[in-house]
């Protein structure tokens, strides 16, 4: 199985902060400024959402972002152009739904199937994929295409994922596992779930990095989750909320970008703070 070097490097120096935005929300140019702001704010990896018309795994915050992006004219080809033009030097992971990956070959006059999409993604500099409606059992064609182009395929592990299902997934995962902090869809919450701790324990025997997402909105939460053993934190809705507030109040793009960079700095600092706490705990345990 291929391992993408850029993603491996992002986890090499300690826990990673992984923000998400829907590409094209609310329009192409603003979205580019927002993604670049996340990189400035200290992102180690960025998840870029390619909007699909039926995003069944998303809560209302990200769903609305996807609607704005689609209304703004985002398409798979525009997405690839966007990634190509983006001025950031962190690895980029494409998060989208399987139908868009599957149909891309046909839209270019070929056969349906994931190969054409993955090839194009690799060409523009994507390092991996998260596909929330693709279960491990159906993932072999996409896994094979990723292997061919040296890209990672990230799976989402839910609080309810265990046993054979977990094994199936861990056999096919690369890059990192997306640990879903709680049941339900994406959306900003404030507590840290016990479900997260139990998921991290269940995954401890595998050495692939574990990044926790769903409901993380503050640096303080990020710190606690990393201190509890996460190798990364993924934040989407809390950032999309900032974009939405900017749209609703007609704030200038650079002001929203600055707010996103500030939020990213808070979350990145929380991630590092959590790592420091965990190392201190380990040091305490060693000296005891």
């Amino acid at each position: 199985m291929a391992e993408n070097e850029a993603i491996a490097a992002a986890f090499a120096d300690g826990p990673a902060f992984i923000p998400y935005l829907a590409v094209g929300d609310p329009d192409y140019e603003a979205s580019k400024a927002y993604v670049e702001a996340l990189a400035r704010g200290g992102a180690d990896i960025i998840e870029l959402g390619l909007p699909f018309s039926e995003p069944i795994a998303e809560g209302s915050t990200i769903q609305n972002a996807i609607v704005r992006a689609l209304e703004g004219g985002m398409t798979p080809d525009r997405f690839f152009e966007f990634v190509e033009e983006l001025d950031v030097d962190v690895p980029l992971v494409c998060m989208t739904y399987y139908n868009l990956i599957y149909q891309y070959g046909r839209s270019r006059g070929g056969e349906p199937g994931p190969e054409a999409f993955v090839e194009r993604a690799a060409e523009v500099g994507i390092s991996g994929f998260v596909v929330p409606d693709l279960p491990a059992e159906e993932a072999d064609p996409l896994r094979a295409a990723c292997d061919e182009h040296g890209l990672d395929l990230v799976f989402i592990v839910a609080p309810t994922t265990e046993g054979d299902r977990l094994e199936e997934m861990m056999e096919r995962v690369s890059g990192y596992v997306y640990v879903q902090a709680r049941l339900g869809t994406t959306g900003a919450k404030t507590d840290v779930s016990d479900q997260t701790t139990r998921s991290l324990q269940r995954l401890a025997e595998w050495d692939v990095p574990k990044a926790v997402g769903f409901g993380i909105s503050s640096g303080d939460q990020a710190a606690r989750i990393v201190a509890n053993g996460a190798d990364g934190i993924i934040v989407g809705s809390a950032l999309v909320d900032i974009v939405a507030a900017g749209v609703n109040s007609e704030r200038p793009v650079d002001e929203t970008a600055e707010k996103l960079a500030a939020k990213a700095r808070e979350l990145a600092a929380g991630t590092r703070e959590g790592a420091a706490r965990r190392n201190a705990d380990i040091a305490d345990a060693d000296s005891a």
Partner: protein
Amino acid sequence: MSTDGKFGDYGGQYVPEALMPAIEELDDAYQRYVLDNEDGFMDEFRQRLADFGGRPTPLQRADRLSERYDLDVYLKREDLLHGGAHKLNNALGQVLLAKYMGKDRIIAETGAGQHGTATAMAAAHLDMPCTIYMGERDINRQRPNVFRMKLNGSDVKPVTAGRGTLKEAISETMRDWAATVESTHYVIGSVVGPHPFPAMVRDFQAVISEEAREQAHEKLGGLPDSVIACAGGGSNTMGAFANFVDDDSVDLYAVEAGGSSLAVDEEAGVAPNSASLSTGDEGVLHGARTKLLQDSVGQIMESHSISSGLDYAGVGPELAYLVDEDRVTPVAVDDDAALEGFHRLSQTEGIIPALETAHAFGYLEEHHAELSGSVIVNVSGRGDKDLQSAIEETEAREIPNAPDMSMFSEGI
């Protein structure tokens, strides 16, 4: 069907990971209770369909249509099932199954409101709390059905995302389920979604063709030559076909909503029809690989039909498979022909059909010359729910066999 929930390459389980345990639990319950009749589940289901639902429904000869087309036309009267449509077969089965599984809450999506009202009735009958998600636009188009759901004690939640129709309501119900899987069963309304839903809903609806097959033997002395049913998601279709699929001599026609045109408007993302079997391409939607109305890059199109119950961009994966295998013939009937069918059945047989069902009669009128011998048409539902839109849509067009309603526009 193979055991992995596939119909050829169609079907499968394309769902967020958080739903997988619920789907595996449901698959286990489907096999034990539905397929193996554990704890007498199917016996109780059949008994309740009889006592609460009023089954069996008649197979009635339509004398005047038979004469008109020089065929033996028989009507499978699902419009006489409690609630006025075939929908109760599935809703009652699933709500009862949820009880056997120890769930304490029901959720469902609804487009036209027929599945919502059937689920609300079944939930009230079996004393289960029930929440129904319905697109905001559909709520406004189908107010009487919203009243019925609320009268039966269900909570109706408007879905404002997208265009506020069925596909948004399905997405929203899946979101609720993802957060509540441990206590809640999602009663999906058609033979769509991830395995085991397409097979399970077909099995609950198969009572239609099980009865029709027996009734045909009594009344026709054998099998019919053809079975015709309308197809949106395809639950009445699969119910009417299931027990005839292995009878190669019986031709099966799935009548889709041709809307105003079978062409698509790629720019606007709109297909002015719901004919996914006739015109769709393979893709993945709402948990299954099936035939879909989608644009060239794979975004799902907004479908259209005068009948909101057929208005869906996907179709059951088993129907897609049977069409590829040439076992089921997909045909499309446009809005005007469906309206003519609506008026014709009302006038000639004294049965006001649902606009969904009216498509099947539109096909019969246009293609009766290609049929021979005996034909069973599944009357999937009655048309009381559609009176308002039938009258408005009729007024907006030239429908030659429509009654004169000018006394209303001129004021009484």
